[in-house]
């Protein structure tokens, strides 16, 4: 009961029902039109035939006289079939023929007449198989010389038969179609319902806490599978974000607690008795420096989450990336030189891109600062960083490579995560957010960010589609 009610409430089933109603209405009007048209057609062809017979008989009368006509009419009247033949005198009395009781106007006026009559009393046995009910006649009446009246006509049996055949065909056809469509509609609705149920089952399970549930996908690759695939992709993304969020929360707690603890102990130490004014000042300065570093970390975190949420594209503009790369190379060249590293810029003439200039600049700075920090540790004699900008398959490719210590293959994925600093101690300066921001910036521009082995060293690559997004 409940299940059939659910079936009725499905869109598929309702659509099926609607189509059945529309179909039946259309079928009725089509059949009515056909019946009307064919009865007209039958009448027309019968009329032609009747008129031809009348003409023949009139000619016979002219050539051979009325007696000969009477003979022919009598013969014709005896033949089995729907024919109606009559020859009467001027007073309306039948001489020969198979019908006698015509309506008055048929006996008095020339021309074509149609009329209903009762078959039992009117027609002889040899007319038609339908001996019951009301007959329908089409006749032509003609007055002959000497006042004789000749009537030739047909009982239109076809008309009756036709109507009933059409009606029966229609009835069976429509009933069959209605039953068939109800069955197929029901089956389709049930199948659709099953697919929908499997999706809502999954979402129920997810809502009750089982994040790893996914919507089953069939091999049919239909619209439901496409829906299921995109739902699953969305769920993957959400699950990823959730686990990422958890990790970030843990890391934030750790990375912010450590400097806060340091700050607190410094302030406490400075408050102790016997600390000189000079040392107190130094402690205050250290506290400010420490809090600046904290603020910086917060800003970086905020920036990443804002970039990941997607900044409005109003901040996008077309500009030359090589120009930005040139600015950054020039800005960092002295810093690299002081660290004993050569910073080399390789750019093509102009690489135009539609992007957020500030964010692209920030991403480049993060990569360069990272490279400077880690290139120094390498064994290579002539330490160098190569910053290159180019175009490749409709992508803009920004690459920063160094020949420093590099990152082991298994750690490269993790290095891009928030707060991950690969040296376990976390003593090195920096928030551990630099590469995460680079990745967020690449994603914002519908691009990719990945790390490769530079043998030796690290190659960091940003690829961004060149087209306006």
């Amino acid at each position, binding site marked *: 009961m409940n299940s059939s009610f659910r079936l009725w409430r499905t869109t598929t089933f309702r659509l099926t029902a609607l189509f059945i109603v529309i179909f039946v209405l259309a079928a009725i009007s089509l059949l009515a039109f056909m019946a009307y048209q064919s009865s007209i057609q039958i009448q027309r062809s019968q009329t032609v035939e009747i008129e031809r017979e009348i003409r023949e008989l009139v000619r016979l009368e002219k050539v051979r006289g009325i007696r000969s006509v009477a003979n022919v009419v009598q013969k014709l009247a005896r033949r089995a079939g729907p024919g109606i033949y009559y020859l009467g005198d001027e007073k309306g009395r039948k001489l020969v023929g198979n019908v006698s009781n015509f309506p008055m106007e048929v006996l008095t006026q020339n021309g074509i007449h149609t009329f209903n009559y009762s078959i039992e009393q009117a027609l002889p046995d040899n007319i038609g198989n339908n001996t019951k009910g009301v007959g329908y006649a089409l006749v032509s009446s003609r007055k002959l010389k000497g006042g004789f009246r000749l009537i030739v006509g047909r009982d239109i049996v076809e008309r009756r038969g036709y109507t009933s055949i059409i009606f029966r065909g229609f009835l069976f056809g429509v009933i069959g179609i209605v039953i068939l469509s109800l069955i197929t509609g029901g089956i389709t609705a049930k199948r659709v319902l099953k697919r929908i149920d499997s999706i809502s089952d999954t979402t129920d399970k997810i809502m009750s806490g089982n994040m790893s549930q996914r919507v089953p996908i069939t091999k049919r690759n239909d619209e439901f599978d496409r829906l299921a695939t995109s739902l699953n992709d969305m769920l993957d993304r959400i699950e990823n974000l959730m686990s990422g969020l958890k990790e970030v929360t843990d890391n934030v707690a750790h990375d912010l607690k450590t400097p806060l603890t340091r700050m607190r102990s410094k302030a406490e130490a400075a408050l102790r008795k016997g600390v000189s004014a000079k040392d107190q000042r130094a402690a205050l*300065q250290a506290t400010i420096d420490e809090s600046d570093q904290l*603020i910086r970390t917060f800003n970086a975190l905020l920036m990443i989450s804002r970039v990941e949420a997607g900044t409005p594209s109003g901040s996008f503009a077309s500009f030359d990336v090589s120009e930005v790369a040139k600015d950054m190379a020039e800005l960092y060249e002295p810093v690299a030189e002081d660290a004993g590293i050569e910073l080399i810029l390789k750019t093509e003439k102009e690489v135009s891109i539609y992007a957020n200039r*500030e*964010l692209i600049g920030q991403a480049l700075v993060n990569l360069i600062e990272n490279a400077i920090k880690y290139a120094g540790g390498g064994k290579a004699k002539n330490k160098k960083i190569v910053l290159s900008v180019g175009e490749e398959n409709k992508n803009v490719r920004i690459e920063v490579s160094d020949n420093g210590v590099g990152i082991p293959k298994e750690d490269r994925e993790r290095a891009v995560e928030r707060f991950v600093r690969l040296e376990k101690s976390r003593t090195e300066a920096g928030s551990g957010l630099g590469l995460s921001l680079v990745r967020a910036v690449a994603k914002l521009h519908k691009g990719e960010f990945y790390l490769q082995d530079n043998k030796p060293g690290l190659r960091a690559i940003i690829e961004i589609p060149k087209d306006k997004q």
Partner: protein
Amino acid sequence: MKILLIEDDREAASYLIQALDEAGHVSHHAADGETGYAMASSMDYDVLIIDRMLPRRDGISIIESLRAEDDNTPVLILSALGEVDDRVTGLRAGGDDYLTKPYAFTELLARVEVLARRSSPNEGETHFEVGGLSLDRLSRKVERDGENILLQPREFRLLEYLMKHSGQVVTRTMLLENVWDYHFDPQTNVIDVHMSRLRSKIDKGYKGQILHTIRGAGYMIK
């Protein structure tokens, strides 16, 4: 210098007012948008410091109204929102500079002083001279005690900005914003490295120091 601070955080405002007073400025405080707007439009100030998010009336709308009334007093916007887009909306509304909270007071002071100077007429000047150092914007020549000094284009712009604001503290972020036109926050001491290079060209081997490092704040030419 007469400064109006429109800021709803009373504690932060009182620190700021005190510090501005110590720096020798006269400062007034308004704690909400309506009062702030009334004060700004009825009195003459050299600089307005306006917080973005205020009770009763937000900072951006105050600036827009002032600009619509042809009041061109320089405005420094303070905001907890620091993203590129927020900065752009702030500056588009008619703000002259944008500072993200939390900020160092030295940074705020340096920016306020530069803003106040902006309304004075040295904007169109083409020749600067400080001590024995001179810079000509047209011939792009730099001389120290009569000797020609060759500078890279960026070094020239750096010195040009410093000399334009001679006698004022210029912070590292101000240099990055105005000389390089980027608003990010570098982790390393990039600006310091550039400054030490510039210093070695204009100060090294000459009598008397012109380019000074102001501890905890930035640089100054005097």
